[in-house]
């Protein structure tokens, strides 16, 4: 059977506020347990929540970035369930009147095509605390630092049809929230988590199949792998004539499998109702318009600008603008070199290669954009050739100093003195008389192939320092005799 996969995603992004959604406690990863809590976060009787202004502004920013209707009146609701890391017995969330309504994103796929993914809604809610299941006298430890941390939950329509498309969509959300500066995007620390709703249906069928939900997947790679493995699991069941049970599953990266978390018998009954402790949030048109007018440049706008201002290809512009940090690095380096194509090639080539090798984020690059630009200037002004530049870059990466320091210290300056190059070539021609004879006897096509040998010899003799742009014409002239 030919199956079509139907995927909808719920992405929880942690908003980068200083304080919590409903209290004045600090927000931050890695603090000592329970040192960032207040009576409100602990759910003490009588403690009342007060809504954080900045979380509201961030949510509206996001709404504009996905072309969404903004909820001019939004209402907080209680989602009731019992778990020890949720001391109030309910999570304050939004149900019928979310802050961000229907919107969409045009997602660029690897093959260069775009597909539109609808976004149903995005709502504000508070995070829960953390349970630690290590053995504390046979009990569970509760850390409530994360409790009441502001989250924006972004819910997509079931518009996604492949693992690759899902990852492209999540990367795009990641890039938007980091561009807007409303989330640090640190998936390893849980600042962005993804729930995957997935079902299969025979190709051509209109009705959706029964779906499962894979909870809390926290890396791009795991999202892709979890989807592949869940598609396989569901297809196996359906092809054997079985049926899918609607349930919540967990992805185990080590075994690369999903497994059941809760069965349908105790399916949650959240009994949502409007939170009586919080009044409706009412926005003015002026407030909403003002946020829209001051929205920072978004990835798609930056990509368009890179194409028009720097004459970069669509592909290069998209890669460079995919993260704000990379785009800034490119623009800062290019400010020094003033050669966008050269800078783009080096950022996407050598720099990305070394960053990947050492699994470093561009923010932690040991070579700054300024220093990187200075290196590229030395390629542009012919001080060094591209090949030597790679060695210099490696040395800069290893902390040996600036490009100019390294070029001086290692004597890498390119030989551009034509007299010196001629002398060098003469020596090589004398030493390889037989090859010179063969070359002179050959026809033009053959000569073109044979010249590589001589260029190689010259580069070897000059230890890579001869300027290839000069070597070639001189060599051709001298070989003619």
């Amino acid at each position, binding site marked *: 059977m030919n199956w079509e996969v139907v995927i909808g995603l719920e992405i929880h992004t942690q908003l980068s506020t200083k*304080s919590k959604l409903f209290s004045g*406690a600090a927000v931050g990863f890695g603090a000592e347990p329970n040192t*960032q809590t207040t009576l409100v976060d602990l759910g003490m009787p009588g403690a009342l929540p007060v809504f954080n202004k900045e979380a509201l502004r961030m949510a509206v920013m996001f709404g504009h970035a996905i072309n969404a209707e903004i909820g001019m009146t939004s209402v907080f609701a209680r989602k*009731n369930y019992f778990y020890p890391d949720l001391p109030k017995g309910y999570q304050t969330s939004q149900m019928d*009147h979310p802050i961000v309504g229907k919107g969409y994103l045009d997602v660029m796929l690897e093959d260069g095509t775009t597909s539109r993914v609808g976004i149903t809604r995005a709502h504000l809610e508070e995070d829960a605390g953390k349970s630690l299941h290590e053995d*504390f006298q046979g*009990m569970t*430890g509760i850390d409530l630092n994360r409790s009441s941390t502001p989250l924006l939950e972004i819910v997509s329509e079931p518009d996604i049809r492949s693992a690759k498309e899902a990852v492209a969509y999540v990367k795009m959300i990641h890039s938007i929230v980091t561009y807007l500066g409303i989330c640090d995007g640190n998936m390893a620390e849980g600042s962005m988590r993804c729930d995957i709703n997935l079902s299969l249906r025979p190709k051509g069928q209109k009705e959706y199949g029964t779906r499962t939900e894979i909870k809390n997947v926290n890396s791009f790679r795991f999202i892709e792998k979890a989807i592949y493995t869940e598609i396989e699991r569901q297809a196996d069941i359906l092809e054997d004539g079985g049926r899918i049970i609607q349930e919540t599953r967990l992805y185990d990266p080590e075994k690369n499998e999903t497994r059941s978390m809760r069965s349908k018998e105790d399916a949650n009954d959240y009994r949502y109702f409007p939170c009586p402790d919080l*009044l409706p949030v009412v926005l003015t048109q002026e407030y909403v318009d003002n946020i829209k007018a001051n929205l920072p440049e978004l990835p798609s706008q930056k990509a368009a600008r890179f194409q028009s201002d720097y004459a970069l290809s669509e592909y290069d512009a998209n890669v460079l603008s995919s993260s704000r940090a990379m785009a800034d690095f490119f623009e800062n380096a290019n400010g020094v070199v003033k050669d966008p194509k050269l800078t783009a090639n080096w950022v996407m080539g050598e720099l990305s290669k070394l960053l990947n090798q050492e699994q470093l984020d561009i923010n932690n690059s040991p070579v700054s954009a300024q220093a990187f630009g200075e290196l590229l200037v030395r390629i542009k002004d012919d001080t060094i050739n591209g090949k030597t530049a790679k060695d210099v870059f490696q040395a800069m990466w290893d902390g040996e100093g600036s490009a100019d320091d390294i070029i001086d210290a290692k004597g890498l300056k390119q030989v551009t003195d034509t007299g010196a190059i001629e002398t060098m070539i003469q020596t090589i021609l004398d030493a390889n008389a037989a090859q010179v004879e063969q070359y002179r006897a050959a026809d033009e096509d053959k000569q073109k192939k044979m010249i590589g040998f001589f260029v190689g010899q010259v580069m070897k003799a000059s230890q890579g320092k001869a300027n290839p742009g000069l070597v070639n014409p001189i060599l051709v002239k001298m070989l003619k005799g």
Partner: protein
Amino acid sequence: MSIDKQDVQKIAHLARLALTEADADQYQHSLSSVLSLVEQMQSVNTDGVEPLSNPLEMTQRLREDTVTEENRRDAFLANAPQAEAGLFLVPKVID
């Protein structure tokens, strides 16, 4: 409208309340009469009336995004029946 005893037990379970048989009988009766009242109210025509989320004619006040609270862990943990290593301890839960 009336509810049966199973409904009562389900609601009690959702609220994590332990009911005796006698309690369940009593709640079945009193909850049913609450629902009868609701049923009576449902006969009112509410076409075009927005559901009310709050009876106050007021809107939510906003708080500046500043950290105003300091660490009071010791005081908070002192309220807990059991604590260790800065954590509240609860009966073991496995998801």
